[in-house]
C-alpha cells in the first residue's frame, strides 16, 4: 500500500513477530524479506512490495499483531 511514495507494509494475517531482519535506514529491493511473522507455528516471511529505504519499524519481536496492523514504513 502506498500513498505519495510512502510504503506501508501491513500484516496479512494475525500472528506474532518472530524476527526482524532489517534495521531502520536499510536499503531494500522489491520482494526482500523485512520480518518474520509466526502464525499457527509457521514462520511467514513478510516482504516489501517495492524497493525503498526502511523508515520505521512499528513492531518489536514478540508483539502480537492483527490483520492489517502496520508493521514497517518505507519510502
Amino acid at each position, binding site marked *: 500500500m502506498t500513498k505519495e511514495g510512502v510504503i506501508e507494509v501491513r500484516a*496479512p*494475517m*494475525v*500472528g506474532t513477530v518472530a524476527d526482524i531482519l532489517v534495521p531502520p535506514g536499510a536499503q531494500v529491493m522489491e520482494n526482500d524479506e523485512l520480518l518474520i511473522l*509466526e*502464525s*499457527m*507455528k*509457521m*514462520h*511467514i*516471511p513478510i516482504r516489501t512490495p517495492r524497493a525503498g529505504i526502511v523508515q520505521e519499524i512499528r513492531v518489536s519481536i514478540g508483539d502480537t499483531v*492483527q490483520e492489517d496492523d502496520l508493521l514497517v514504513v518505507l519510502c
Partner: protein
Amino acid sequence: MADKEELTDWQPEIEEIEQRRLFAAQMGGEEAVARHHTAGKLTVRERIERLVDPGSFHELGSLAGRSEERDGKLVSFRPANFVMGIGTIEGRRVVVGGEDFTVRGGAADAAVGGKWTFAERMADEWHLPIIRLIDGTGGSVRTLEQMGRTYIPDNPGVVTMAKLLGKIPVVSAIMGSAAGLPAAKAVLAHWTIMVKDTSQVFVAGPPVVRRGLGEEVTKEALGGYQLHAYKSGVVDNVAEDEEDCFRQIRRFLSYLSSNVWQAPPRAKPTDDPNRREEALLSIIPRNRRRPYDVRRLLDLIADRDSLFELSPHYGRSLVTDFARLNGYPVGMMANDPMHVGGALDAAASEKLMRFVDLCDTFHLPVVNLVDQPGFMVGTAAERQGTIRKGVRALCAIEESRVPWIAVIVRKCYGVAGGGHGRHGGLNLRYAWPSAEWGSLPVEGGVEAAYRREIEAAPDPDQKRRELEDKLNQLRSPFRTAEAFGVEEMIDPRDTRPLLCRFVEIAQELVRTELGPKWRFGMRP
C-alpha cells in the same frame, strides 16, 4: 404499398417485425448509450455479443416493450429493459440474459413482466447453463404509480433459480450496481464474478442506507470488490474489466458439462501425464516452520496452464482451483501455509463447503493436497464461529459422492485434518515423506498431558524436551504406514502420474453416477 385487398403475402408484417427489432436494438437511445459508455460500461447487447460465439445469439422477446403509435403507425418504441436468448460458448448452447441499464437504469418499472423469468425457465427445462449479466437496481417506487397499487413481494423466479443450482451451471456476473432482487440473482449462482470499479452489490444502495441508518457511505465502500471479494466472500472472483469478465466466464464454464446429467468435458490432452517434476522433491522445506508456495506446487502437478483459481481473495488459507489432469477436469484444493499456517478458519470452511458442493454437483473428481495444521484458534476465530462452520464443511465432504483422493504433503492434524477425505467412502491417502499427522501436534500435546511430570521435574524444560523427543520418534510416517494407517508413501515426483491414473479410474465411476447430487441428513 399495395392496398390490403391486393396483398397476397405477409411482407408488410415482416417489415414491421424488422422495424420493431431495429428500434429495440437502439435500447435506451443514443444519449443514454453514450452516457453508459462514458461510465466505462458496455451495453447489454455488446456484452452478449462479446460473451457468446460470434453470430450465435438468438434473441427471444425482442418485441417486448412499450410502443407509441400515431395514425395507426408505429412512431417510437421503448424496449423492455432486459435482453435474453440462447447463444453458444465454445460451441455449447447456453442461455444468456442481462438488464439493459440504458433503459430506466434496468429498474423493474420499465421491465416487461415474465421476460427474465422466462430465461431462467428455459435453462431449467432445456438443461442449459445460464449466464446472468446483472446490471440493474431492482424495484422502483415508480412501479406503484404505474400499477396504481402495491403488492406483496413474491420474489419471482427465485424458486426456479434455486432449482437450477442442482441441474445446470449458473454464473452471475455483476456488471453494474446490483441491489434488491438483482443482488439476490447475483448470489443465486454457483459462481459470482464482479467487474472491478464499475460494479457493486449490496442489499440496498447509499440512499436507502442513509435513510435507514444515517450512515453515509459511497457505493464502492458499501458494495465494491474490495469488500465482497476480499472480506465478505459474497463474490468469488474479480474481473479487471468487462472483457476479462467474459474471458473468465468462458474459462469457468469450460471445466463443466452443460448439466448434471453429463460427465465433465475432457479437453484435448496436451501435457504428458507421466511428467515428473524434480522441484517437487524439495518444495516442502525440511525446516517445519518454513512455508512454501502452494500455488507453485499445484502448478507442478496439474496440466500446464490448466489451473483456474476460484475465490482467490477469500478464505485464503485454502486454495481452490478447477484444473485438468491429462485433459480431464478436476477440483483441486490445497492449504496455504503462508496464510495462518493453512489453518481452517470460518471463511476457509465456508469456501471449502461451497467448493465440495460444486465439484460433487458437477462430478468433478476432487484432489486434496493436504497441509492442514487444524482449525484456526483464538478469539477472532471463535467469534466467527469457526467450529460450527468447520464442522458444517466436514459434513459437506461426508455427503459427497464424487471420486476423491488425498495426498498428504505435510501436516494433517486435528478435526480439520480429519476432513482430508470422505470417511464414509474409500478415503485413499497418499503421503509424501514430509507428511506429519496426529490428533494433536506433539508440542502442545506434551504440555497438556504431562504437566504434572514436567512441573515436578528438577529441570522442567529438560523434562519437556525429553518427553517431546520420545514422542517425536513415534511421529515418523513410516510407523503409520507399517500399520496401514496410510495407504502408500510416495516420492513427490510421482504425484502427477498417479493422480492422472486416479482420474482415469474416476471417469468410469463418474459415468455411472450422473444426475443430481445425492443429499443426506441436515447440515449443522
